């Protein structure tokens, strides 16, 4: 018994990743649930349009409404545009009795809070919820779930697929073949990209069929956002594979990437309700931006122009993550080749595809340097 316990502790002390999970995960969960697990949105952004906009804005409680736009010449159409572009959570149209508050239903918890506060105004302000009139949770969750599924395939499945090459030793063979590291990566992730895309179509279709989730926007904008997001998560998968020796390690590491995305991307807990420090972690996660795109396109019919920020963030993340993953993978596959000469007979092949794959670059400066 004692020998077994000692052996187990010795193994555990050498398994740094499990140790990190054992120590880090409780801390992470404590912080997340302490600071992020909050459904109550403390403030919302608001706009007032129409002839009485300034007067109405002054009557709104500033502790809850952060009035960012006052447009006395604005109309209902302007108010709807502000909501569609996600500029504000609520836009109140004045110049009519009662004033009409248009509420963005795609922001579920904010809209619930807004309706609750507006009810205190009695018959001075009526409200109308757009994009999710019945405030259905499924309408908000399905677009986010699509991102979660893509994250799952991109990180866990892809990293396992790549680590399997390492575990079975076939990565060693690929490294010696005349095949570029980037070709290996692209060849490995292309099937996952296609399967994930198919999954996305199926889940979106099922979501619309089973939960009547609308698709009000442009399918091309949605597909482009999904493709960018997929590149980010597939890059994460490749990156995870480069720091994992076994499938078990890859799953552990991918889980550490996945959990914060579920909890801090705004998918479950609204970002606006989180403490500032934790919210900023959410702003570093790709799922946060995909959720903005998917909810925006599907529910609000948002245009590409209004979604420029999440698109830009995903594009930057895709470049950074994929470059990092490729560089690390290249280091695994093709170490630097100093002091290496290509034999004369083989030069014809080398010339046909210069520096192809892990093959040595022809050099003429023969000689031992050490």
């Amino acid at each position, binding site marked *: 018994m004692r020998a077994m316990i000692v052996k187990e502790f010795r193994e555990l002390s050498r398994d740094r990743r499990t140790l990190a999970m054992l120590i880090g995960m409780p801390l992470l969960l404590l912080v997340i649930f302490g600071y992020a697990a909050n459904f109550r949105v403390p403030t919302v952004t608001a706009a007032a349009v129409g002839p009485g906009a300034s007067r109405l804005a002054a009557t709104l409680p500033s502790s809850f409404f952060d009035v960012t736009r006052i447009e006395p010449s604005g109309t209902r159409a302007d108010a709807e545009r502000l909501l569609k572009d996600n500029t504000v959570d609520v836009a109140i149209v004045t110049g009519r009795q009662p004033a009409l508050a248009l509420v963005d239903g795609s922001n579920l918890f904010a809209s619930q809070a807004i309706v609750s506060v507006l009810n205190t105004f009695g018959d001075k302000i009526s409200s109308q919820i757009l994009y999710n009139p019945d405030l259905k949770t499924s309408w908000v969750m399905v677009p986010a779930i699509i991102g979660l599924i893509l994250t799952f395939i991109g990180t866990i499945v892809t990293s396992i697929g790549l680590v399997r090459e390492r575990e079975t030793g076939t990565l060693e063979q690929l490294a010696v073949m005349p095949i570029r590291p980037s070709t290996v990566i692209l060849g490995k992730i292309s099937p996952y990209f296609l399967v994930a895309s198919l999954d996305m179509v199926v889940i979106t279709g099922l979501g619309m069929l089973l939960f009547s989730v609308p698709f009000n926007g442009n399918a091309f904008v949605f597909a482009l956002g999904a493709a960018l997001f997929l590149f980010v998560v597939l890059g994460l998968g490749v990156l995870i594979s480069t720091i994992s020796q076994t499938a078990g390690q890859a799953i552990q590491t991918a889980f550490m990437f996945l959990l914060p995305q579920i909890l801090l991307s705004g998918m479950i807990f609204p970002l606006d309700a989180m403490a500032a420090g934790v919210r900023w972690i959410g702003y570093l996660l790709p799922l946060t931006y995909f959720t903005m795109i998917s909810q925006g396109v599907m529910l609000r019919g948002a245009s590409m122009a209004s979604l420029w920020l999440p698109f830009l963030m995903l594009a930057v993340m895709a470049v950074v993550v994929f470059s990092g993953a490729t560089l690390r993978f290249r280091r695994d596959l093709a170490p630097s080749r100093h002091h290496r000469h290509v034999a*004369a007979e083989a030069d014809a*092949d080398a010339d046909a595809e210069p520096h192809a794959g892990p093959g*040595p670059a022809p050099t003429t400066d023969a000689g031992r340097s050490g």
Partner: protein
Amino acid sequence: MTYAVRSAVVRFGDTLALDDVTLEVEPGSVVAVVGGDGAGKTTLLRGLVGRIRLEHGEVDAPSAHQIGYLPATAGSWPALTVAQNMDFVGGVYGLSGTTLSARRDELLRRAALLDVVDRPASQLSGGMRRKLGFAMAMLHDPQLLVLDEPSTGVDPVSRIDLWRLVSEAAAAGAAVVMSTTYLDEAERAATLLALDDGRMLASGTRADVLRSFDGVVARTTSPHRRDWAWRRGREFHEYWPGEAAPRDATTLVPDLEDVVIALSLLRRHRHGLAS
């Protein structure tokens, strides 16, 4: 053209994995790299095919298109069938159509794998898997064929098959480098390189190695010095470096196994490593 790794030094952290090791192989010949576990065989072969960077030394090797490599670990993709493994490798090396199918079938026939072309590699026996790995490494008819312990864990019959394939590859003009822990296999090679703890113990033809051996090996049932003796069957062989054996000892003509073990013991004694 001679392919070679010359004066190779490789270090992994504080461990000196190769220390001034040179390996040369001519087209049409087989060089066997022999040594025990951790001797540096795999490191040397990986250096030759460009998988690791040498700290010092140089490598003369053909381009990646002209190297065939069978690593010690796998050699094939377990989820793919025999035919699919061959087709994948053929595709990477630019083979297709009838050229690929003809070359594939010929190699599989020689490796006695034609009957299992549709079987996943994971369901092959150990010997069959290594033969498949060999066929994959040979598919593009490389100038340099590097085989890392192709016969380790393989049954005696499959070992014979593998050696026939190796001999045929060399006869066809390939320069073959193979590592092995079996000294009887090394004796079949044109030249051999014996490694111990990352250092060269001996190199050259079998005759060269035996001729250059210095000292006496004696046969005994009760060795005088345990740390200079090793078991061979029911008796011990004992090495007397550069000196005469005791009068009661029965000296013998050492074979390659004796020589490699004796040189290894000598090196360890000189470095104070003997147990």
